[in-house]
């Protein structure tokens, strides 16, 4: 019988949680949080037809909006990383690109994670900075 051990063990150290069900849950929960945050903002925009900079600043001066925005930011980063990682492991796979796939994946994943870290830190700075 052929050895199919290569197909038996699948470990991906760069996956968000290295576990399919955890990644799946994180992606769906973060999607719900993002949907809630987006819909809430849209409702606020609709209820504030003559939007001014002062109103916008006042909104984000309140602690609960800052907390919600931070949760939204974290959810966006987690959601994006799982999506980006999944797309990369689909299109930049060893199966389609051979041995050099690991180089493409490394560059792609490093660039993606750097962008997300910058996005997260920048977002925190905007929300909580002086």
């Amino acid at each position, binding site marked *: *019988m*052929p050895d*199919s051990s*290569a*197909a*038996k063990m*699948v*470990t*991906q150290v760069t*996956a968000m949680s*290295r*576990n*399919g*069900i*955890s*990644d*799946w*849950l994180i992606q769906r929960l973060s999607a719900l949080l993002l949907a809630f945050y987006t819909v809430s903002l849209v409702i606020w925009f609709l209820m504030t037809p003559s939007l001014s900079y002062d109103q916008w600043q006042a909104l984000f001066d309140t602690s609960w909006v800052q907390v919600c925005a931070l949760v939204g930011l974290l959810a966006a980063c987690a959601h994006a990383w799982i999506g980006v990682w*999944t797309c990369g*492991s*689909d*299109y930049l*796979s*060893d*199966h*389609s690109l051979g041995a050099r796939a690991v180089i493409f994946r490394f560059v792609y994943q490093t660039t993606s994670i750097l962008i997300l870290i910058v996005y997260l830190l920048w977002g925190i700075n905007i929300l909580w900075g002086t």
Partner: protein
Amino acid sequence: MTMAVSVYRYNPDTDQKSRMQDYEIEIPGGRDLMVLDLLELLKEQDPSLSYRRSCREGVCGSDGVNMNGKNGLACITPLSEVVRANKLSIKPLPGLPVIRDLVIDLTQFYQQYERIKPYLINDAPQVAQERLQSPEDRKKLDGLYECILCACCSTACPSFWWNPDKFVGPAGLLQAYRFLVDSRDTATEERLAALEDPFSVFRCRGIMNCVSVCPRGLNPTRAIGHIRNMLLERAVQPSPPSS
């Protein structure tokens, strides 16, 4: 009636790369031929054409091919169902290596099938006769055991094209659920543990290509959803005390 047929050709002994070969073929009137009948007529015209076939009635699953872009069994697909503008294109099932013409190498497909341990595992002491099942438990296997492993579903799945070494694929997962749901099987925990990684099950995006091409009318997407629910239940349940 004359029909234009275009067939994927590749002979590893003589061809550097694959090509499509066009044929004009006279279709006898009076009845709706199956695509396999057409292939037999083509084979009379060109004996070098290779394809797999056996039972010619949709039971063995040997003659899965891609007909005008859709996977199916040639022996039970009527020409009237697939021919468009009097033209038919026949290609091998996509995503797996081609051995010759319409014959593909199914090794990766079978390795994924082997991986899900497609047999009953029962740790209980051997019983004198067969292990009995209630009619309700037996009914849970309907829509699962009928799979003939023709590979039409897995080779219609982009996730399987991209990761055939890691994603079990719809055919394998349908069979995985067939044993997970079997009341006589006691290896549920081991089976689920082997499927919890980010690839084996979770590469399924639910696009349902598998459902639309299954010649037996089975629903692998639903089975994959059940496996996902079992994995979810297992993840939120407290672990049993270690012995």
